[in-house]
């Protein structure tokens, strides 16, 4: 009885939905994204502008929660046979998406099939490299990309007798500065967000050493982690030692430690360039932006840093007409005006060189010094096999493992060597499992 009535209800709903579809005559494009708060409002603006720019397609942005929730929602929808057209996936999910052949449509294929104007060389290599195959095929459309930089509290520098216009360049300098800050009465010298992304992943690229074999996983699934090299161990052990003197204070997972910088507790802080907006809003002092520090005794350092953030993946199984709409939106998204707007209003970097040039020409960097640091830091040197990005299966889980092991190191339960060895060993086990599952 109830079953029959629910069937009737479903049929009625279908009829209404079908009727609505034919009435509006617009093709609807679903865009599932993970941008909340102010960023979510920017996403809606971009979608509105696209919808106003043409009348054939209607782009519908839907917020599905945070990054992991959005990916999970996309996967569940695919398994239920109802995937969205566009799914925003964070950078560490790249290998997972790539491995899902048949579930996704690579961007280069989409652009070729729909005949949309598309030249990969328009895009910033440092950004697209992460989402491009070794033979130069772009798999997903970069959307929000950032890179880690050093934020420092100018007022605190002044109080500790340091020059507020001379941020530390190297890690030994960070140590010296922090010691002076602690001596001046600050409870903490420096802290960090995204410990794995900044101090292992970007640390490796910045010093041109591999995170894993096979070009950091770009060249094959049979890759193994290498982030327990003497250089990695030296850096992590140094931070663990600093932790004892409060030169470094651990602030929690992800960017939970941001409050430590914004409240003035820690005067130096390594965080994504996209953290700028939050600090601008919450910090009651003048702060500066500087390049990520490096170890001066490493030949060739600094190389370039890699991106974090997310890209837009096109899901498989949709009609040609719908794909044309997606391609049209990607062309719109790549317009210099759209990119410059996104870059200036969010702290993410632009994805095309044209947008960077446009922002420069508008005098934006003169009015907002330091906002071009991430772009230079990523793009001034051509990326090497160690610095174009990472492509490891199950990397989301590997990052969890790294968090656990680093926390054990910071708490003094393990030495840096032990902790990193264990993380590499546990990570490799997951890589083998992923290799097996994707065969």
């Amino acid at each position, binding site marked *: 009885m109830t079953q029959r009535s629910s069937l009737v209800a479903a049929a009625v709903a279908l009829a209404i939905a079908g009727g609505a579809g034919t009435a509006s005559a617009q093709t609807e494009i679903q865009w599932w994204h993970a941008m909340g708060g102010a960023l979510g409002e920017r996403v809606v603006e971009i979608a509105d502008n696209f919808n106003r720019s043409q009348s054939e397609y209607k782009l519908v942005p839907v917020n599905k929660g945070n990054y992991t929730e959005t990916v999970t929602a996309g*996967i569940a929808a695919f398994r239920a046979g109802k995937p969205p057209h566009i799914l925003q996936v964070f950078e560490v999910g790249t290998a*997972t998406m790539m491995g*899902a052949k048949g579930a996704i449509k690579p961007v280069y294929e989409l652009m070729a099939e729909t005949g949309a104007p598309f030249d990969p060389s328009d895009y910033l290599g440092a950004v697209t490299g992460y989402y491009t195959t070794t033979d130069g095929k772009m798999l997903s459309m970069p959307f929000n990309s950032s890179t880690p930089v050093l934020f420092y509290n100018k007022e605190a520098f002044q109080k500790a007798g340091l020059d507020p216009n001379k941020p530390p360049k190297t890690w030994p300098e960070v140590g010296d500065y922090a010691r002076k800050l602690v001596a001046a009465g600050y409870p903490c010298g420096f802290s960090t967000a995204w410990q794995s992304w900044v101090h292992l992943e970007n640390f490796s690229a910045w010093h041109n050493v591999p995170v894993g074999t096979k070009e950091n996983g770009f060249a094959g699934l049979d890759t193994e982690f290498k982030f327990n090299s003497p250089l990695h161990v030296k850096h992590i052990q140094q931070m663990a030692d600093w932790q004892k003197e409060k030169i470094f204070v651990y*602030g*929690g997972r992800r960017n*939970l430690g941001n409050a430590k910088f914004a409240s003035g507790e820690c005067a130096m802080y390594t965080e994504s360039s996209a953290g700028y907006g939050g600090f601008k809003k919450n910090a009651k002092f003048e702060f500066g932006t500087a390049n990520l520090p490096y170890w001066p005794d490493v030949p060739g350092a600094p190389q370039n840093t890699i991106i974090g953030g997310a890209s837009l993946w096109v899901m498989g199984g949709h009609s040609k007409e719908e794909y044309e709409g997606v391609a049209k939106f990607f062309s719109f998204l790549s317009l210099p005006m759209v990119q410059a707007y996104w870059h200036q209003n969010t702290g993410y970097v632009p994805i095309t060189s044209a947008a960077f040039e446009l922002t420069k020409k508008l005098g934006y960097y003169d009015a907002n010094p330091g906002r071009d640091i991430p772009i230079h830091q990523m793009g001034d040197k051509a990326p090497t096999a160690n610095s174009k990005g990472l492509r490891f299966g*199950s990397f989301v*889980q590997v990052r969890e493992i790294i968090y656990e092991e680093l926390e054990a190191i910071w*708490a003094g339960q393990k030495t840096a060597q032990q902790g990193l060895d264990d993380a590499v060993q546990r990570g490799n086990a997951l890589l083998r499992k992923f290799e097996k*599952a994707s065969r």
Partner: protein
Amino acid sequence: MEKRVVFRNRVLPYILVAPQIAVTLVFFIWPASQALYQSVLIEDPFGLSSEFVWGENFVELFGDPWYLQSIQVTAVFSVSVALLALTTALYLAVQADRVIRGAMAYKTLLVWPYAVAPAVAGVLWLFLFNPTLGIVAYALRKLGYDWNHLLDGRQAMYLVVIAAAWKQISYNFLFFLAGMQAIPRSLIEAAAIDGAGPARRFWTIVFPLLTPTTFFLVVINVVYAFFDTFGIIHQVTEGGPAGATNILVYKVFRDGFIGLDLGGSAAQSVVLMAIVIGLTVIQFRYIERKVHY
């Protein structure tokens, strides 16, 4: 003459129990069998390829020191939460039972925390104890105690135990109070006339007569600590630092929904299911014998 009610219709009894069977099938048997099925597969998240691997996921699980640590953490956490929530609630119930004036107000206030969702309770406690912003953390630092549950696993455990127990105290309190009020006054008065003090009256009369309630609450509290504390762990520690508060149910979630390791996560939930079934059987077979009804 037979006094039992007998259904003459052979089909009717089946129809009457059908809704219950259907609910059990859809909401318990079916998902549980899915978990069992998934636990013997290695599958990619999209379900495009899967391989049957027998017990490989389980072998891997029990060879993983972090999983064994998680079992240990769960044991410590559950026992602590149940003990703290039960003893505090019992103490409060005894006190509330004696209050004559304004008893209603006390009781109402004590029940309030139960209305708070676990995730919200987690956030509240997190605000109090946040090492940078929390008022309690600030007070502790002023007293010379370095509070940083982000780094210190022991402190993190204290925090989640307190937060989880705090939420359950109200529930236990209600049941204890009701149980106590069901104990005949005459028994207690008789003991008082015989010269037994309050403590003796409690241990020889009230506590034994409360055992059915206590037993029921032990079962409920253990299940609560195993499953319902998920929101608190998620908000307060995310299982950290270094896995110090990574209880089994939280690990299932992290490996399955964040790590997208479906086979491994399913194997964990099968183990979890077995543990809880085992615990409940033990409670009913051995502890229940000591219960006076």
